[in-house]
């Protein structure tokens, strides 16, 4: 029974849409995080002095501190954006798919 349900869900064009939309969104966000994080690691490894520059003349706050604080906040903001969209839009779509598969079942 359950295998038939899965087949019906898979046949639903909404399923293809869900997978494509959510997949694109998740991978885009993941790519942003990975690129920024490993880019930062590369700068630390190859050009550490650039991170030691002060953010303004005479300030003790360095570019490195500012960049890192930004990444902590930005990465967390991305998780919030993902959770908001996945728990709203994508979950609603998922429920529709499951509901429609049940209907066909009857």
């Amino acid at each position, binding site marked *: 029974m*359950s*295998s038939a*349900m*899965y*087949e019906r*869900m*898979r046949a639903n064009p909404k*399923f293809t849409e*869900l*997978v494509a939309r*959510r997949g694109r969104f*998740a*991978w885009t*966000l*993941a790519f942003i*995080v*990975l690129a920024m*994080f*490993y880019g*930062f*690691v*590369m700068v*630390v*490894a*190859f050009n*550490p*002095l650039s*991170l*030691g520059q002060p953010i303004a003349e005479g*300030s*003790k*706050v*360095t570019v*490195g*501190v500012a960049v*890192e*604080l930004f*990444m*902590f*906040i930005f*990465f*967390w903001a*991305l*998780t*919030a954006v*993902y*959770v908001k969209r*996945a*728990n709203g839009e994508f*979950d609603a779509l*998922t429920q529709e*798919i*499951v509901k429609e*598969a049940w209907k066909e079942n009857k």
Partner: protein
Amino acid sequence: MLRQIITALGLLGLSTLTLAADAVAQTEKQATNWHAIIMFCIFVAMTMGITYWAASRTKSTSDFYTAGGGITGFQNGLAIAGDYMSAATLLGLTAMVYTQGYDGYIYMLCFFAGWPIILFLMAERLRNLGKFTFSDITAYRLDQGKVRTMAAISSLTVVCFYLIAQMVGAGQLIKLLFGLEYNTAIFAVGILMMVYVTFGGMVATTWVQIIKACMLLSGGTLVMFLAMSEFGFSFTNLLEKATAVHKLGDKLMYPGALLKDPVTAISLGLGLMFGTAGLPHILMRFFTVTDAKEARKSVLYASGFVAYFFNVIFLMGLAGILIVGQNPEFFEGGTVGGKLVGGGNMVAMHLAKAVGGNMLLGFLAAVAFATILAVVSGLALAGASAISHDIYARVIMKGQASEATEIRVSKIATICLGAVAIVLGILFEKQNIAFMVGLAFGVAAAANFPVLILSMYWKGLTTRGALFGGYGGLISAVLFVLFSKSVWVDVLGNKAALFPYTQPALFAMPIAFLLAYVFSKSDSSVRARQEIDAFEDQYVRAQTGFGAASASNH
């Protein structure tokens, strides 16, 4: 005199090992700290009350392993943050900022950056496919017996190394903070852990974790707040003063020795990021929530708490440079710039004492003890579930075991693991066990993570590929660590390391992926064909959550 086997500084620059290295440095017994002991007793009384309550609610296997799947996203977020922030985080990272400045901050970002990735690529599928352990997912469409055995072995390897590191760290810390004997401390941790897990299962373990996370967050915030008040809450003011007195001077805010070798830097980044995504006690937490929605929320809250706390620690370390580092009271013999009383790890504790007196010091010491206890309980539960759910119920009994016997086996397994932890903790007292945390992360990243992610994303994975990938990752991670400087030279006393890097992830992970790929592709058996076909249903379930293990009703 205080002895310290590891003068962490040299190691600090190199690896994850550092965190543990600092936390497990040999320490000398201190005067009995009554404030800390009383506050810790309050914590124990509270958690015992919860365990008693939890015991009455723990009847089925689902209650025992996953608290009946009824934990909310917020609660689980706190518990995950609790699992992730150990005593080494609080003490080791504060000390690292104190001595190395900006490098400590970089390290914290490495620890943090894995969380968004876990959310985007894994959280939802984990919840939709898994039931009690992550082997449920890897073995979903593959050979139950062989794949589960492999996953259980690598889980237990991770759990054991992590447990030893935590136990030895606990003994040393408690000796230092509470003035108890090393062995007393080990027994106290081991026995309390057994009580929480055997009687209260996941319900009690989760609540211990939540209470501890709240204590850690509020204690750290209070110390940070009081310390910052001395600088008029101005970060610029704090930085100006700190760079003026620190021996690194302006270089305090530069990347230093930590990641100057690109290979080590990338390997460390990979190991911490994907190691986190392969730790069995963290993965297990995803099965305690109702559905994928709550699983996503857990990561949102957990990463928020972790990010916040890391920034608190950064401020604590910097404030410590002035408040602790300039106060002769905290140095042996009263010479500023000499050796800190109790060792380099004590910066956070001294800072608490300087800004809040003995009460705050006692509170923070109690938090450190509670932290160890909570992390150890989570590990024991993850290890016990690998034994009882994977090996006993699924492999030996082939799914025919009754719930009652399965729970009994997991309780026995917990007691055995506790006993093993106590014995190993005592045996390893004088050993340099710094490499064990690195090994745990390395095995998690190279053995657990590749097979887990492939089983969720790659249709072509077969039993043969999973076995070669899993065992290959496990063996290569262990060998790389064994032949690296931290074991081959520092522990075994050989002259030169056979493997030039301290971080295995960059090398062991590709080996695991490659083996899994090659041996899946070349597998043309009928069984492999069926496994590949079975991916279709698994894929729909992973995406929609239809058929996922649901929360049981109490």
